[in-house]
């Protein structure tokens, strides 16, 4: 079977598997976030935390609860990494250096999972399990909480309450992520991923060198890494490492897991707004963008332009032979479109234009289909822009899901859309003007710019995948990218919550003849067009100097 046929079959199987889970998982998540009932375990946790689960919060209180939780989580993780040498299961590793601890704590807190370290030679098992894996759960649950709060903004009327952050966080972790992660870990173990507490196996290589092969609780971390669209690998090679991702079946599971929740959340959205067609429209937009990027990346990698690649017969540099061009393209498109950041191939080794498309995919704002929670709230915010633009173009009243789009909403949406590009472009510009930052670049010329642009695009959009080549473990990049991740995640979240509060205060208005239907194919095209045009206009100059200059 050819690589292309196998790839097409895998895409078809992937879509079928997601379609199978779409309704039940989406409906289950809707029930989780709308249920009045708390389990005994949840009630116990609320008592310990001093939380009244029945008390809904105003949006500023919801936001401050999220910030307080995030600040404490980051300080805890920073401290844990710094003192790991004195804790059990450190494997003899010293404490993680301060700047790297700051970067890593910010990275896992923000669901980015950018890694300026090699997992197998830096992190002990306790740091991996009690620090990084815990953040994988909570950061994903925070993303889903924000998404649900924004949806409540649409469905509630004349209230200043958008839910309870602590309840949303707890339910997301206990009722959604934990059960899925347990099933996912077992599936990955069955597929061949390792799960042990081995302190390392010494192997004698053919060159006569002794090499310590690190084991570890890999499958359990791998499951939530994909399901939570986190992406931080147990090993430096991430999902290209055979212990994390041993074969095409585990690779298929990884792609399925990272798409599962973002896709199903569109069903949750449709059910919560009591109009499933709205969920289908959002899903169709996400699928359109994902399909376009996949077709582009796959075509560029399969065409493998360039003398060396033509002689080799395929663009296989940086790709695993057990996965091939098609599956590597599928993984790369899915991971850059979901803010996951796991990789099963070196993105720096993709063709110049293929790599450029991956950067562009992140530049879309992580909405194809986006991260766990972040994808749905991100695309709903762009949908407001699309409705507003349509209103200006064809004279429709600017309203979305029975809420008027007023000046306040447009201000918040505009700030949301501007925040990430400003961080990306300003960060890249600063890095290119600082000699110590330029010294981290491996390749000269346009590819070098692509390395830096990719780093800031990935961290500001909380993706976390790396282009490879750039030496990130320096004081400059640890601090600059750490701040980029925090700002790129938390400022948009505050604006989204502000928007939720603003929408909830409004009364719901009935649709009229002047209302733009937002469940039609026309709206899907309009929304996809707005996303592509906004990202294209914003990032085209930078992409022209990097991947486009290299590839054309």
């Amino acid at each position, binding site marked *: 079977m050819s690589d292309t046929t196998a790839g097409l079959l895998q895409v078809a199987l992937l879509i079928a598997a997601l379609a199978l889970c779409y309704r039940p998982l989406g409906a289950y998540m809707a029930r989780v976030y709308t249920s009045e009932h708390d389990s005994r375990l949840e009630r116990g946790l609320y008592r310990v935390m001093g939380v009244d689960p029945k008390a809904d919060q105003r949006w*500023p209180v919801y*936001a*401050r609860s999220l*910030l307080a939780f*995030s*600040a404490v989580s*980051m*300080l805890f993780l*920073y401290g844990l990494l*710094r003192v790991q040498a004195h804790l059990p299961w450190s494997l003899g590793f010293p*404490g993680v*250096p*301060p*700047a790297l*601890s*700051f970067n890593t*704590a910010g990275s896992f807190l923000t669901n980015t999972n950018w890694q300026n370290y090699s997992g197998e030679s830096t992190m002990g098992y306790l740091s991996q399990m009690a620090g990084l894996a815990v953040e994988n759960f909570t950061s994903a649950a925070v993303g889903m909480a924000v998404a649900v709060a924004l949806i409540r903004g649409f469905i509630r009327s004349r209230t200043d309450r958008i839910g309870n952050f602590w309840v949303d966080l707890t339910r997301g972790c206990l009722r959604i992520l934990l059960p899925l992660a347990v099933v996912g870990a077992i599936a990955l173990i069955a597929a061949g991923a390792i799960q042990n507490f081995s302190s390392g196996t010494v192997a004698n290589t053919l060159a006569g060198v002794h090499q310590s092969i690190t084991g570890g609780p890999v499958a359990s971390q791998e499951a939530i890494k994909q399901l939570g669209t986190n992406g931080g690998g147990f090993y430096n090679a991430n999902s290209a490492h055979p212990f994390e991702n041993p074969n095409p079946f585990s690779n298929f599971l990884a792609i399925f897991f990272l798409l599962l929740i973002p896709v199903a959340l569109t069903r949750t959205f449709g059910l919560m707004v009591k109009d499933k067609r709205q969920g289908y429209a959002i899903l169709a937009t996400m699928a359109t963008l994902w399909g376009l990027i996949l077709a582009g990346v796959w075509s560029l990698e399969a065409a493998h332009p360039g003398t060396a690649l033509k002689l080799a017969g395929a663009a296989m540099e940086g790709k695993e032979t057990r996965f091939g061009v098609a599956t590597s393209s599928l993984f790369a498109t899915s991971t850059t479109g979901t803010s996951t950041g796991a990789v099963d191939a070196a993105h720096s080794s993709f063709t110049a234009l293929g790599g450029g498309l991956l950067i562009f995919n992140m530049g879309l704002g992580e909405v194809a289909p986006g991260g766990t929670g972040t994808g749905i709230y991100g695309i709903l915010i762009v949908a407001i822009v699309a409705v507003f633009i349509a209103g200006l173009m064809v004279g429709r009243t600017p309203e979305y899901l029975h809420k008027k789009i007023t000046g*306040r909403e447009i*201000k*918040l949406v505009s700030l949301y859309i501007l925040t990430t590009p400003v961080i990306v472009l300003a960060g890249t510009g600063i890095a290119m003007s*600082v*000699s*110590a*930052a330029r010294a981290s670049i491996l390749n000269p010329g346009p590819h070098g710019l692509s390395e830096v642009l990719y780093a800031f695009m990935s961290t500001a959009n909380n993706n976390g995948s790396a282009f490879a080549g750039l030496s990130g473990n*320096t*004081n*400059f990049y640890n601090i600059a990218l750490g*701040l980029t991740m*925090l700002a790129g995640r*938390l*400022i948009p979240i*505050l*604006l989204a919550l*502000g928007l939720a509060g603003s929408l909830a205060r409004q009364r719901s208005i009935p649709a009229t003849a002047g209302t733009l239907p937002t469940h039609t194919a026309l709206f899907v095209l309009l929304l996809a067009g707005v996303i592509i045009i906004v990202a294209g206009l914003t990032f085209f100059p930078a992409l022209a100097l990097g991947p486009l200059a290299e590839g054309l």
Partner: protein
Amino acid sequence: VWSNCPPDDWSPRMSDLVFVILIIAFFAVLSLIVKGVERL
């Protein structure tokens, strides 16, 4: 050489203090942004 870059030979205790202050300061700024958005 990036002149503002903390030198690598900073004592860990000093660096820890700097980063803890940086984290707390960052979240304090975010809390102010909440107030700013409220007034928008």
